């Protein structure tokens, strides 16, 4: 294992890692409001559930490179087409979990909320989403980890991030550079996963669960 590039250029690798995380995080931030609306509609309007899920399933089957190639003529190179691709893929993971999370909440609990006199919005915000939150947060985690992987490919169209190390390294036949990029991506993905798993434990439901195990 030739770690010379990683040790010799750690500042650059660190900068690229931050850039990578920024791009991935930005994609998730943009994607979440869309996913929240699409997921809620899919969970509430039963006739739309299947078409929405089928469309997302179809999106998922499109290879990321093919999607980028498709976007370049209209969007050009750089961050913009990369973000569009990442936001689209993030929908697949987030919408699926939002639907599953919302659908998984006990119908009797929701009826109790209505019976207490909550409006539809109060019920959504105070009961439905909090009870679905562990599954929703898990969807955000899955989406972010997947997007971190996909952001690598964005390096191919000059969107920045750790993909640069891979594509430039391969072009220059410089294995140490490629290895530095691979290691940084893996570490970033694993750390992100661990951090978001910890965040899942902070949801109200997870807290209530832990409290009851302590009984």
């Amino acid at each position: 294992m030739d770690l010379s590039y990683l040790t010799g250029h750690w500042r650059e690798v660190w900068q690229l890692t931050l850039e990578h995380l920024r791009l991935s995080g930005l994609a998730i931030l943009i994607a979440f409001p869309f996913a929240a609306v699409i997921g809620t509609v899919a969970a509430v309007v039963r006739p739309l559930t299947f078409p929405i899920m089928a469309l997302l399933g179809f999106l998922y089957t499109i290879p990321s490179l093919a999607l980028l190639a498709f976007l370049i003529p209209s969007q050009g190179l750089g961050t913009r087409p990369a973000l569009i691709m990442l936001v689209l893929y993030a929908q697949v993971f987030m919408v699926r979990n939002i639907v599953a999370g919302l659908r998984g909440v006990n119908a009797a609990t929701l009826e109790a909320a209505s019976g207490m006199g909550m409006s539809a919005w109060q019920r959504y915000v105070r009961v439905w989403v909090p009870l679905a939150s562990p599954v929703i947060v898990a969807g955000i985690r899955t989406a972010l980890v997947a997007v971190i992987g996909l952001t690598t490919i964005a390096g191919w169209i000059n969107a920045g991030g750790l993909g640069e190390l891979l594509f430039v390294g391969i072009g220059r036949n410089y294995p140490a550079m490629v290895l530095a990029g691979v290691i940084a991506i893996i570490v970033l993905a694993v750390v992100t996963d661990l951090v978001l798993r910890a965040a899942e434990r902070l949801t109200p439901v997870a807290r209530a669960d832990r409290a009851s195990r302590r009984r």
Partner: protein
Amino acid sequence: MAHHQMRSADTGPEQHERGSGIVFDNVRKDYHRAGGGAGSHAAVDGVTFRIEPGEFIVLLGPSGCGKTTLLKLINRLIEPTSGTIAIDGVEIHRKPAVELRRGIGYVIQQSGLFPHLRVRDNVAVVPSLLKWPKEETAQRVNDLLDLVGLPAATYANRYPAQLSGGEQQRVGLARALAVRPRTMLMDEPFGALDAITRVRLQDEVKRIHQQFHQTIVFVTHDIEEAVKLADRIVIMRDGRVVQIGSPVEVVTAPANAFVTDLVGAGDLMRRLALLPVGQAVVSASPGVDGLASLGPAASLREALSLVLESPAGRAAVRDGSDSIVGEVSLASIQQAVATGEPTPAVPVSVG
């Protein structure tokens, strides 16, 4: 209208007003048949009756008879196909459903507590919807937890999953009582509890009703529960009301074979438990002073048990001031059951 909304928040510590009167007028709820078949069937079919303010009404019937549908029509979780329901003379569609429901306590099976909220926050749900001041809500939550026998110091910060089924149902009860509703709807609230816990909670609900006189509409399929709690039992079958009457009335004078079967009117011991000792009292004979005695509120079942234990085969009946009013014997109890004729002490009217 405005003062109606305010009322719940500014009544005194436990100063409930009398419960609401509820009038059902030809209420009907149709559902389309499942499986795409033609036509529809009526879950509730032309129900008309009146609930008096402060009454404890039990809706009793087999599953699918429409009792839960009828209950949910009151707080508009289900909307009627036709007919009207009025609470205190105001048709329930005259104000928004959300506002209507905040004024009606609602207790369901398995408590329906919000698992992500602590006990105190569960109890405070409706006060928070009504934007009560924080201190008032906190005080009210403590009082309520005391009322249902769960000391706040121990229970307020727990999550529902940390409570037993009976404790959860007590919290459900406290939550429903939070804003001092004049009407409480209870949908098989104790159906999932073990027998001992169920009896305790029945006693609790009965005590709370006697203390505050809310109007309570309580759904069950358990005749023992109905007899124990109800001022009047409304017996339903296939969406229709079959009989309305006090527990004694439905057990001693069932309207038809269905009711006889449902309430087990053929069960002699059940009838004895419902009939007051007064029905079998005959004038005292010599020597009654030395016998074991019963109060005037005792049932014939208690009388029978005392008679069977007594070597003399008789028991004395004393009134409130401990003076003897007469005696009961095996023969007099037999006579009371055989005639089935209620004495004037127990007025029975059907309908």
